[in-house]
């Protein structure tokens, strides 16, 4: 199978009430591809009036959607999954062009995981049940889950369709209507989703609004007519959205990134076997998805007595990374998602060098040739330094890893936890005690043990500390999209006797 740049219309609409509609103000923005800096297509530059129209449609649809049976909803989610799967190559080629990530990732990870996510929530909603407790001879407490109503969702650009699936699947399964704003850098696959699955969901159940944060995101997140806001992004906007939600006393879930430590204990070098090979790959995972992952293992911690030998292997594996044409199945590292990200990454490499970090490999922009010469590529970069440097503390969101050594378990835990964030972490060891004790001591929501960057459905994902709250990718996310109705029923014919 060979892949190439997909074809696009000149412009696209918002998806409101089951139809594609033009933005009310008639304005559009140009979406470009980071692979070559060329125009892809125009998407609506929506304003408050468009958002209101989408919320109207969702509110109308809610009247019947909230009463559908779980069987009906589950069947629809399964149909959606089947359609994405049947069009996997088209979704993958589009995602690659819009986001810049290589085709081997969209074909093998982004799109199949999105398919699986719809199937997962189609399944678990069928098995969900409330509870009944007989509190005493005459009194029964029934707990029944109800949908919240209309939920607002704002998603990021690093895994456009997968983050769409993470947000939309549990919300729909739980019986909510959705108004979703994709990131303005990556509007393509959400639109393709609406095209391909049109007619499966009743009109107004899922509405997609394109546009900029201050113009479309803000009226959506602050609307008193939505019942919940879910956001993935950075901390200032997360805080802002929580403030808006506080005015409406709305629940929120937040996923705000991290600076995840990836800790290698000396036992990994005890044998030169397939496990050591896996550990080396685990360290180089910092370059996965160009480092544009909230849980990117962007700090490597190596036990000092194996440092020399282990780092040599990591550098060799990093230097073997194939960069360039994102449509070549052999390409491992694609383009950064936008010019401003590219610029930010290079600026971090500069401050890293200034703070005294040693560049072990990379450290520059990567110049692709031919058709991709104007794209935004960065060499995979390893910076050696200490944990107080800014490159160890801030999410660079590029293929840049900060590396340091540690003496013993206590120092490894101390460095791992010396961060504002707590989303992901990795622990690599052959020691059975460390396998359990170190992950328990690290303050992060997801600790991968002898693996990294695996995201199967039914493994809850979410942050500690400034990384946010809420657990996606697991049936517990249903709870974040549901109300708890308690019916307290008396079977006693006699009055209480107070009055």
């Amino acid at each position, binding site marked *: 199978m060979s892949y190439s740049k997909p074809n696009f219309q000149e412009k696209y609409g918002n998806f409101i009430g089951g139809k594609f509609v033009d933005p009310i103000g008639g304005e559009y923005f140009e979406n470009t591809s980071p692979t070559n800096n060329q125009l892809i297509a125009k998407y609506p*530059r929506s304003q408050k009036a468009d958002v209101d129209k989408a919320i109207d449609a969702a509110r109308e649809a809610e009247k019947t959607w909230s009463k559908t049976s779980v069987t009906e909803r589950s069947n629809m989610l399964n149909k959606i999954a089947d359609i994405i799967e049947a069009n996997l190559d088209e979704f993958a080629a589009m995602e690659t062009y819009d986001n810049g990530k290589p085709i081997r990732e969209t074909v093998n990870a982004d799109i199949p995981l999105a398919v699986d996510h719809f199937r997962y929530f189609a399944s678990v909603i069928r098995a969900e049940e409330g509870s009944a407790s007989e509190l005493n001879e005459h009194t029964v407490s029934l707990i029944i889950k109800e949908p919240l109503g209309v939920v607002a969702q704002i998603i*990021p*650009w*690093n895994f456009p369709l997968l983050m769409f699936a993470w947000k939309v699947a549990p919300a729909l399964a739980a019986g909510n209507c959705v108004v979703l704003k994709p*990131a*303005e*850098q990556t509007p393509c696959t959400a639109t393709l989703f609406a095209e391909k699955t049109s007619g499966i969901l009743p009109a107004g159940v899922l509405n997609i609004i394109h546009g*900029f*944060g*201050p*113009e479309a*995101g*803000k009226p959506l997140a602050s609307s008193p007519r939505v019942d919940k806001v879910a956001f*993935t*992004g*950075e*901390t*200032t*906007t*997360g*805080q*802002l959205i929580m*403030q808006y939600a506080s005015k409406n006393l709305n629940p929120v879930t937040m*996923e*705000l*990134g*991290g600076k995840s430590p990836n800790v290698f204990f000396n036992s990994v070098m005890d044998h030169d076997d397939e496990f050591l090979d896996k550990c080396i790959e685990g360290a180089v995972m910092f370059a996965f998805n160009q480092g*544009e992952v*909230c849980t990117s293992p962007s700090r490597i911690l190596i036990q000092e007595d194996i440092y020399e030998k282990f780092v040599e292997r990591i550098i060799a594996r990093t230097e073997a990374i194939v960069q360039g044409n994102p449509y070549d199945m052999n390409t491992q590292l694609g383009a950064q998602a*936008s*010019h*401003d*990200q590219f*610029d*930010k990454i290079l*600026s*971090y490499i*500069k*401050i890293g060098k*200034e*703070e005294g970090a040693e560049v072990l490999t990379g450290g520059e922009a990567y110049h692709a040739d031919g058709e991709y010469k104007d794209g935004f590529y960065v060499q995979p970069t390893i910076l050696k330094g200490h944990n*107080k440097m*800014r490159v160890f*503390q*801030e*999410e*660079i*969101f590029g293929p840049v890893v900060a590396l340091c050594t540690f003496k013993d378990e206590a120092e490894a835990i101390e460095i791992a936890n010396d961060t*504002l*964030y707590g989303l992901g972490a990795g622990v690599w060891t052959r020691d059975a005690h460390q396998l359990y004790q170190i992950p328990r001591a690290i303050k992060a929501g997801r600790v991968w043990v002898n693996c990294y960057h695996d995201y199967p459905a039914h493994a809850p994902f979410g942050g500690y500390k*400034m*990384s946010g709250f809420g657990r996606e990718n697991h049936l517990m996310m249903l709870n974040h999209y549901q109300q708890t109705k308690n019916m307290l029923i008396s079977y006693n014919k006699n009055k209480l006797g107070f009055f």
Partner: protein
Amino acid sequence: MMNVKRVEITDKAAELVAKIKLRHGELIFHQSGGCCDGSAPMLLPKEDFYIDESDIHLGEIADVNFYMNHKQFEYWKHTHLTVDIVQGRGSSFSLEIPEGFRFKVDSRLFTEEERIELGM
């Protein structure tokens, strides 16, 4: 006398701030962290963002106050910041995004002299 500034702004960036101010009124900068467009400064309407003692005031640039969360400041305080603009598109609520630009910070270490003056 304190001459050392923690944060400064380029002329191009200051022009953009002035333009946005005409449309949106009083503004603040708040330095973000975390995922995606994190690590970039956000320009917001002043009354939109709740500022309290958990936010450190780093200075005023283009007549706009610049803040950073105090925990983040602990890791940033040894560096001087310059706010600049780059063509691009963030996905946050920062006000310059519709203009096709993104504010960014360039950083450098404070010199020994500056550190002494800042009492560090």
